[in-house]
């Protein structure tokens, strides 16, 4: 309940007047001689109980009368359930068309159920309302009621995951900024628990969040990711199919590789065995399938991992890309250090490299090979000489003074993250803008540690345990492998992005330097709906958020502003109270 004139409620203090008057009237009454006091006493004894009740009733009636008048003056607005027009309302409809909305439940797509509820909400809007539609891309779409309705009708399951917590916050901020009476956010989503994992939304007061209660969440498994390395594809699965006893069933996985006329050729099959239960309740399984890399020609290859169809088709297949290249011809100069020499020997033994001078790893000098990986010199006095050689070869980077120890951070090479660096030179210079930033492959304390410029790669530390713990780490040999086979070659690697399943290649000039593999977020595969308590807590708290069944959702929508001025009823009540007070006060028996 709200009030048009809340300041009038200060008048409620007047409700104490009857009680105060009662107390103040306890003054000494005038004294009068009256002989038949004995009759008075008898009459009073007989009427004492009635008189006490009468006094109490009068006190209650008078207090209630004042309260009724004061509250009526404050013009209370009481919410109405059902019926009646609502006041102008700003509303955002969040229609969650993320990939999971394409799941088939009880013979129909989840999105269709959400769409029906969205149409119902739109149908109750009036020309005075302001309505926006937010889909899984997070974009707020305004417009006329008809335009929004058309957008709803044309919506199909998308490929982007919708973080409901962030979406609610954005929507709530939007409606809260509108100069209207009502502010509502309608959440039409399958309310996956994974969509609510990013904390709790901050919803301003006065904004109502109405969430359609989720339906049944079917069992589902999907391909969470595909990683190709060492001639094998590791396919990670999410979700599980359970047998009648609740035991996860093995999942057959099919790998198709090839491009052009050979595209779609079945390269391998595997059977993924479900893994252990994870903390989030989701099960993960992985299968490793060998790829016939030796028979593939050098270059970039695209493949696809696929599962048998289930209720959610969007996550049943996922593309992947990898590069087939001949081993690099690499060697190390004597100043490169013993750890580098040992790593190259291992790689050579594994046929990852062959002996040659295409790639040279040096220590303090700049080789004249086509590709060079340069470590700083042992002797600080040689820093200037090497910097000048780098500059003459057109490398914009140079070593500066010794800098602070720290740990490695790299978005390109996950294996480097967290490795300690105790001694390093600060790498300075480089290109400006995005190009320069793109050449920084790893940092320490925010400063470049591994940079690339053309065919030259610079390291901030020597690959020696006196400088960094990297040579003693398990990922050292793979790191050196990546250095000589990919990084120094200018290859950017394969990255993953959210979107419709496909592969995009990155090029530099005529060279393909990397690829981006698009696919749905792995969290979309977990169709388990969140509990009502979790939804309420994550979407603004129980004071603002309601999780409602379809019927109640339809009834509650825009009901926050269906209010009626109750002052008339209160005035009527006051009149009734006044009449009752008059009747009781004048009644002598």
């Amino acid at each position, binding site marked *: 309940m709200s009030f048009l004139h809340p300041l009038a409620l200060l008048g409620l203090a007047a409700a104490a007047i009857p009680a105060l008057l009662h107390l103040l*009237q306890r003054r*000494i*009454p*005038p*004294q*009068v*001689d*009256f*002989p*038949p*006091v*004995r*009759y*008075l*006493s*008898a*009459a*009073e004894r*007989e*009427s004492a109980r009635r*008189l006490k009740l*009468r006094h109490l009733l009068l006190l209650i009636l008078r207090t209630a009368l004042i309260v009724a008048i004061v509250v009526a003056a404050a013009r209370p607005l009481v919410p109405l359930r059902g019926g009646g027009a609502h006041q102008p309302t700003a509303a955002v409809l969040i229609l969650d068309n993320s990939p999971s909305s394409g799941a088939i439940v009880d013979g129909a797509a989840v999105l269709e159920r959400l769409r029906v509820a969205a149409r119902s909400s739109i149908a109750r809007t009036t020309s005075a309302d302001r309505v926006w539609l937010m889909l899984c891309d997070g974009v707020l779409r305004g417009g006329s009621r008809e335009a929004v309705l058309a957008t709803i009708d044309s919506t199909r399951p998308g490929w982007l995951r919708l973080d409901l917590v962030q979406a609610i916050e954005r929507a709530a901020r939007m409606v809260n900024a509108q100069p209207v009476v009502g502010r509502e956010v309608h959440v039409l989503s399958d309310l996956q628990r994974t969509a609510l994992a990013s904390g709790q939304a901050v919803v301003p007061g006065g904004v109502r969040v109405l969430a359609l209660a989720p339906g049944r969440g079917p069992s589902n498994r999907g391909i969470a990711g595909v990683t190709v390395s060492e001639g094998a594809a590791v396919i990670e699965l999410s979700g599980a199919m359970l047998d009648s006893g609740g035991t996860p069933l093995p999942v057959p996985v099919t790998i198709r590789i090839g491009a052009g006329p050979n595209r779609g050729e079945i390269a391998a099959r595997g059977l993924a065995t479900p893994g252990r239960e994870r903390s989030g309740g989701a099960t993960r399984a992985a299968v490793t399938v060998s790829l016939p890399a030796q028979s593939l020609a050098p270059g970039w290859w695209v493949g696809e991992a696929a599962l048998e169809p289930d209720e959610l088709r969007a996550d049943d297949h996922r593309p992947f890309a990898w590069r087939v290249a001949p081993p690099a011809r690499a060697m190390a100069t004597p100043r490169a250090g013993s750890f580098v020499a040992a790593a190259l020997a291992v790689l050579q033994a594994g046929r990852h490299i062959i002996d040659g001078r295409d790639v040279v790893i040096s220590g303090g000098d700049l080789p004249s090979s086509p590709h060079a990986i340069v470590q700083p010199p042992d002797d600080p006095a040689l820093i200037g000489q090497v910097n000048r050689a780098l500059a003459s070869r057109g490398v914009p980077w140079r070593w500066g003074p010794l800098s602070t120890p720290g740990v490695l951070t790299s978005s390109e090479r996950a294996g480097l993250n967290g490795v300690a660096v105790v001694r390093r030179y600060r790498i300075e210079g480089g290109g400006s803008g995005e190009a320069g930033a793109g050449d920084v492959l790893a940092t320490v304390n925010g400063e470049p540690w591994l940079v690339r410029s053309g065919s030259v790669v610079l390291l901030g530390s020597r690959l020696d345990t006196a400088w960094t713990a990297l040579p003693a780490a398990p990922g050292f040999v793979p790191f050196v492998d990546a250095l000589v086979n990919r990084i120094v070659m200018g290859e950017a690697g394969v990255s993953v992005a959210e979107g419709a399943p496909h592969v995009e290649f990155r090029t530099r000039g005529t060279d393909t330097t990397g690829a981006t593999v698009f696919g749905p977020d792995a969290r979309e595969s977990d169709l388990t709906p969140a509990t009502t308590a979790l939804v309420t807590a994550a979407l603004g708290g129980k004071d603002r958020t309601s999780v409602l069944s379809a019927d109640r959702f339809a009834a509650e929508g825009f009901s926050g502003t269906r209010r009626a001025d109750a002052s008339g009823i209160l005035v009527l009540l006051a009149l009734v109270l006044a009449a009752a007070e008059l009747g009781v006060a004048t009644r*002598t*028996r």
Partner: protein
Amino acid sequence: MVQRLDLLDPAEVARLGGIEIVAEGVVEGFLAGMHRSPFRGFSVEFTEHRAYQAGDELKYLDWRMLGRSDRLFVKQFEEETNLRSMVLVDASRSMAWQGSPERLTKRAYADRLAAALALILLRQRDATGLVTFDEQVRQLIPARVKAGQWTRIVRGLLDTPDGQGTAAHAALQRLTALLARRGMVVLISDLLFDRELALAALRYLRHRGHQVVVFHLMDPAEIELSGPPEVRFKDPESAVSVVVRPRELARAYADTVRREIAAWRKACRRHGIAYHHVQTNMPFGLALRLLT
């Protein structure tokens, strides 16, 4: 035009003069209206017959004589001179109260009523006396019929001051010892004392053969409660007080008074005592007529 004082407002009549003047005026008017002694029949004895004349009341016709001789005779009565009457006037403090300055106090009304009653009785040559009392007997004038008795009674009324409490029981008990011969006892009081004790004494008088008459005197303001919104009513005799809101209690109080009057009336009737409720705004003639 000559006005009958017995039918005028008591307060207006009282303004004409003292008790004697008022009582005489009331009695004159009262007797003129009655044509005959109002108390004939209980205070007179049969003496002889005489021939019926037109205008004689038929109730005095001797039907037995008519049956024997077929002649109309009426009975002649001789006034009795040895009837003894005692008028008891309550002089307690409660009697000195008036509900309005426009009315007489209960005591003033009682004095004038007693004086008039005594005058009538003396004119009938009945021996009449007076007792005034509150907690004790204040004045005792034995019943006599000699000249100057009425003046003594009036003087006795005037010499009795307003008293304190009321002890009718004690006064009535003492009176029983003084009334050796059968007679009439008239009690004029507001009856604000213990009903059972007073009735015990009155019953005793009745048992001794006395004719007992009770005038229950009340001010109209004692019947209908009124006053300011809240007031402390104090009993002038006992100092007992009670705080009430008259408007709230009026109905219950009126019911209580009605029940009290009914209780007195019922108790008196049960014991052969004549009970009359008189308000101080009732003309004296009407009050006296209650006795006939």
